[in-house]
């Protein structure tokens, strides 16, 4: 009796030692696995990929609509919530957004559709300055390449000012503060389109070069009826010289 018990205990001890050792090896292996240099897959399904620097700072987010980020500066979200920009969002060395490539489009129950495919590069700490885009509201299309100037004001400051303005009670004070906010800073508007290449909602093919206030000054166009012209304009939009098909 006694010897049998002793044999059982000895067996149990051995079993406990073995299973503990096996468990330790397995646990260690499980934790070590992600450190393998290259993980190989034939095909994977994901909702979002974050490409991060060693310190965890975002460099690139590739995601579906639901998991797409809102604006981020210095690693912190600001402005509006995520969930509206499926595609890719780019970030600079400081973890601030500096461009993206997004694509959306759907038809509503009423048969009307809206679609936008967009790639943009942002000015440092500002918004987009190079934009390649196709935007379509149920057949009304604007598509091409734009180049913009942006004021030398950090986008975070602008957002803070805008949020403060929105909190003001409605009235004359708010209106004049809003007007001041939208006015050009000394000599430069918040944003000015300097160049457009493409096709506008009037179905004209266009090259438009604009001054630093965003006013078109030189325009090449072939309109929806096929009429070609090369126009010089003044700051108010009046055509000063027009060169057409006939001398």
């Amino acid at each position, binding site marked *: 009796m006694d010897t049998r018990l002793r044999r059982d205990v000895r067996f149990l001890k051995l079993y406990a030692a073995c299973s503990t050792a096996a468990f330790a090896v397995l646990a260690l292996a499980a934790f070590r696995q992600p450190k393998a240099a290259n993980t190989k897959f034939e095909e*994977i399904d994901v909702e979002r990929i974050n490409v991060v620097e060693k310190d965890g700072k975002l460099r690139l987010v590739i995601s579906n609509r639901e998991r797409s980020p809102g604006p981020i500066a210095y690693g912190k979200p600001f402005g509006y919530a995520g969930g509206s920009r499926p595609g890719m969002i780019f970030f600079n060395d400081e973890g601030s957004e500096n461009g993206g490539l997004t694509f959306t489009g759907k038809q509503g129950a009423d048969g009307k559709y809206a679609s936008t495919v967009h790639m943009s590069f942002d000015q440092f700490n500002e918004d987009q300055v190079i934009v390649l885009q196709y935007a379509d509201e149920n057949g009304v299309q604007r*598509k091409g390449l734009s180049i913009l100037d942006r004021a030398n004001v950090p986008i975070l400051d602008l957002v803070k000012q805008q949020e403060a303005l929105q909190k003001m009670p409605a009235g004359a004070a708010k209106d004049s503060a809003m007007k001041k906010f939208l006015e050009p800073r000394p000599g430069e508007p918040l944003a000015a389109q300097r160049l457009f290449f493409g096709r506008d909602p009037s179905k004209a093919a266009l090259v438009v070069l604009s001054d630093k206030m965003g006013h078109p000054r030189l325009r090449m166009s072939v309109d929806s009826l096929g009429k070609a012209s090369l126009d010089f304009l003044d700051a108010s939009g009046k055509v000063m010289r027009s060169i057409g098909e006939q001398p």
Partner: protein
Amino acid sequence: MEEQLRREIRRLRRTNAAAIGLLVIVTASAFVQARAPTKFDEIDVGRINVREPDGRLRLTISNHTRLPEVVVGGKSYPLRGGTGVKSAGLIFFNDEGNEDGGLVWAGSHTAGGHEASAALTFDQFDQDETVSIEYGDQNGRRTAGISVMDRPEEPIQIFAESAMVIRAMPDGPAKDDRMRRFRASMEARGALPAQRFFAGKRPDKSSTVMLADRKGRARLRLSVDSLGSARIEFLDDSGRVTRSLTGTDAR
């Protein structure tokens, strides 16, 4: 003796309890870990599918072999790669899971030289590419630039269905005739694409900015040709130059 045995059993019980406890914690933490983003320093893949929660494709990133079929109107058509170019890259899909653009590249030596291309394209809703930046190269005959196209209002699925039928036909006069009639009917109902804008370089080694009318006929063109001569030209709808401005014109 009896006392020692009892002590050992007690110790075994304790070890066992501790091991089970540890197992529970590790297992639980493994499951928790799986819910947070999974971390890799580097991965090798044949293809990545970015999907919406309902499984709809939003983006594929893939090698050539796994490049997805064309998906329009919710249906796949094996129409890609008809030219034999082995593109790889990114294909974009809209909120309805239909293709709406891509960023693809290819390049290889061929028996006669080489063939290379790279393109970023944005598609009109339920249609084909409408904005593109593209480089194409056939044995040194190179085009590179940005184009804007007008596309018909009708869904591209109409085109895809016909293309599938024609592709399945045996080569010969019947197929050629069918192709001609198909093109003629598209032209008759105004369903052919029209390039409205191009800025870039052409195979004749000119650089150009071209604006076209709604039928895709160049009507205003800025160019510097391979010999360095610069001009602005106005053209009529038959392609005849009606006015030409150059640097030596008297004002």
